[in-house]
């Protein structure tokens, strides 16, 4: 498999409180990779390291085959980046910002940019310091898309935007990907948002990558089971037990949250003398929360 972003043994420390430890991240080429994690988990730091905006203490980074940080400027000719905070020059108008950006990017699509201006409802003669937060977000996305990048890196692109703007922005990304086949690396803590568009997911917590799997396996593999009469020592399990709690209002019944579930695994419960009453699919957010719980206090079956 080819990777648009590949890090090996990446290590970074910021002060005494935050550390990114031995990060091995692999973003498959052509995927829409959702980079999940709670606030402060290291998503933005990882992105900045991958884009050469921060220097790692050790480890290697390759983005679209370019070694980072040595080939950062060559990489940026092929990467569109929407940062967490707006950073455009406030004295320029929207049109001037497009012209400025286009002057630097060899694959700039001027006609596409004008089309996106209309799609996003942005007035070309508005000064950037007069734009609302939503308009700023749309302009940043427009600039990144009109570069016709091979890789789009989006750091919380819809954070703080209203639902209408958020939908516009995500639709533009989906349309771009369907046309170009580009890779998208998108970080967010809005799990539901990523669930709709991503085909790969990586989960960060406290500076570590706790999961990196295809979205379908992440979503389908995490289940909530309702189990009756389960023994305290449940033996070797064919799945990963993420959480085990007593169910409300029913003695002897427990709720198990498991990963890696397959339908054939119900036989396991017969083997330990328990009864599997129900199997419930968890959505990405529930799975994400359970995964973080496990990562923070691993349980043994």
């Amino acid at each position, binding site marked *: 498999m080819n990777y648009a972003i590949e890090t090996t043994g990446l290590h970074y420390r910021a002060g005494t409180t935050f550390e990114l430890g031995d990060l091995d991240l692999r973003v498959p080429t052509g995927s829409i990779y959702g980079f999940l994690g709670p606030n402060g988990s290291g998503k933005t730091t990882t992105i900045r390291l991958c*884009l*050469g*905006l921060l220097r790692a203490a050790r480890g290697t980074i390759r983005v679209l085959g370019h070694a980072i940080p040595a080939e*950062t*400027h*060559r*990489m*940026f*000719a092929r*990467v569109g*980046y929407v*940062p967490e*905070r*707006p*950073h*455009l*020059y*406030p*004295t*320029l108008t929207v049109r*001037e910002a497009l*012209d*400025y950006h286009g*002057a*630097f*990017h*060899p694959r700039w699509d001027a006609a596409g940019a004008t089309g996106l201006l209309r799609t996003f409802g942005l007035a070309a003669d508005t000064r950037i310091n007069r734009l609302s937060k939503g308009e700023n977000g749309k302009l940043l996305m427009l600039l990144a898309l009109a570069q016709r990048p091979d890789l789009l890196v989006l750091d919380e692109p819809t954070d703080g935007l209203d639902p209408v703007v958020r939908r516009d922005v995500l639709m533009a990304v989906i349309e771009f990907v369907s046309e170009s086949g580009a890779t998208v690396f998108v970080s967010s803590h809005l799990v539901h948002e990523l669930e709709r568009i991503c085909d790969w997911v990586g989960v960060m917590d406290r500076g570590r990558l706790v999961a990196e799997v295809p979205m379908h396996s992440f979503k389908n593999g995490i289940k909530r089971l309702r189990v009756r009469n389960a023994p305290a020592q449940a033996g070797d399990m064919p799945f990963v037990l993420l959480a085990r709690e007593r169910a409300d209002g029913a003695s002897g019944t427990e709720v198990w949250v498991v990963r890696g579930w397959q339908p054939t695994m119900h036989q396991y419960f017969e083997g330990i003398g328990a009864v599997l009453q129900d199997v419930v699919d968890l959505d990405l957010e529930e799975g994400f929360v359970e995964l973080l719980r496990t990562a923070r206090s691993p349980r043994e079956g």
Partner: protein
Amino acid sequence: MFRAVCRLQWKASFTAVALIAVAGFIVPLLAVQRAGFAVGDRRAWDLVTMLAAVESAGSLFQILAIMLGLTLSVSAWSADHQGDHVYALTLPVPRWYYVLLRFGAGVVLILPVTLAVGLGCALAIQGIDLPAGLRSYGTAITLRFALAALVAYAATFALAAGTKRTAALILGSLVAVFAISELLAMVGVGQGLLTTLMVGIFARPGPFEILAGPWTLIGV
């Protein structure tokens, strides 16, 4: 690419640059007017006083050159500082090249102001009947203004490009030098350390020398 950077620099600094250009145009006219060279009856004036008046007005050229350099360098980097340089660092050009583009854009904006100063000087000395032994230095003043602005711009550009930490370090060093100088002066040791330093920077042969000394539009 360079044109785009020039436009950005112009948008960020045009009000200040335009004001400095207007001032640069007016200063030579005022200098000549105040000194009385433009007035027909020169007998009422003492030439020494007139030259002193021209020289005194000439110090405004220094101030304008420094102001221009400072304005251009601060406006070149202030927006980048606000955005933590993220935008500039994510452009597909080597960093040294981007810095060169930004520097070059500032240099370009020194030109119109220099032109305004040159025009002002030319108009100021045009038509005045200089007494024997006196000469006008319009072209020299104009060129000196351009070089002084360039030196001021280059020095402040380097400082402004740094982080807040760098700026604090430089400012802290200056304050420390000043404090040590004062302390030494108080105990009678190393008197004039600050003066020596200033002389070392501005008077000895070196780039900053151009900012010091008299700027006379009319002299012997």
